């Protein structure tokens, strides 16, 4: 039986996606919904991993999902931190101001259409200001890295396990139940 595909490549790809989604201001707001960006990253890792399987290979197992989710989450945490630091160093406040202005226009439009109450729109703007201020501090960067190193692997594992539940092979591999 052929060996299973290498996990590292898939973990790096999905980790970069998790990091990019979580590190770029504005897009990172997707994580405000229960870390949806990280969940989706873990799910994507399992999809990509499944695509690499060919006939004659050992079937995909749930332990692959656990390991892949863990690896993607750790890579994602580092990439997210590096991305936000890179954006801050290269673009500085210009990029932050640009994202802020785009975001404020979007929120104002939502407030005008009645989707978001005006007081909530103000709270959202304050929240973005706060996150921009935090990302500019060294303690903020390391604090964020520490938290993401705990949270991202957890949610990426959950995403990958959910991915396994969705993309799993029709007949699950036989496992020895150690009692």
């Amino acid at each position, binding site marked *: 039986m052929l060996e299973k595909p290498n996990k590292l490549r898939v973990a790096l790809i999905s980790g970069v996606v998790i990091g990019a989604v979580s590190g770029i201001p504005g897009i990172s707001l997707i994580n405000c919904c229960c870390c949806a960006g990280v969940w989706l990253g873990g799910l994507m890792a399992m999809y990509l991993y499944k695509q690499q399987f060919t006939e004659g290979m050992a079937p995909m197992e749930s332990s692959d999902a656990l390991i892949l989710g863990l690896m993607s989450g750790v890579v994602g945490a580092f990439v997210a931190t590096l991305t936000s630091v890179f954006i801050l160093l290269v673009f500085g406040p210009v990029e932050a101001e640009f994202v802020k202005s785009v975001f404020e226009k979007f929120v104002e439009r939502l407030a005008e259409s009645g989707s978001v109450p005006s007081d909530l729109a103000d709270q959202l703007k304050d929240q973005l200001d706060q996150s921009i201020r935090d990302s500019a501090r060294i303690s903020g960067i390391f604090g964020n890295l520490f938290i993401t190193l705990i*949270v991202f692997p957890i949610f990426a594992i959950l995403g990958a396990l959910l991915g396994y539940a969705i993309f799993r092979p029709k007949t699950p591999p036989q496992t020895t139940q150690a009692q």
Partner: protein
Amino acid sequence: MSDSKKVYSAFLVLVATWCAGIILAPLLEPSEPRISSLLYSFYAPICHQIDGRSLHIDGAKLAVCARCSGIYFSFLISLLLYPVVHRLASPAIPNRRWLSIALLPMAVDVFLNVTGIHPSSILTRTFTGICFGAVLPFYLLPPLLEAVTQLQTRLHLRGGLLYARKAQ
């Protein structure tokens, strides 16, 4: 205690600790403001924590919004009830259409709110979160238990091989 029960118990403790943090943040605000602030910071990357969209205890918001609270607490309750309705050792995962059905109310609520057709309320956010969170353990726990068993088997095999090599 079987391995499945041990893994289940550890996972339950992890989820219960996660949910306890969400409640402790507002409860500790008057007496331990620093710990409370740390807890709010911990949950900040995963939730917007907007006051108007959160549930409150004694006037202080929970560490995550109403929808997230619905997801996490229904996940915890569902996880507690899991051994009653599903055999722990069984690797069976429900059909994925139930997951789509559970996700549908949340998707509809978000869609109606974003398009301005019908604004979502605390009640709809919490309820749709509960619908989604309640089904998740049935998709996550079987592969998790199976994965830990597989890893343990691999470690035992590796340990046995090392022992055999040393014995030679």
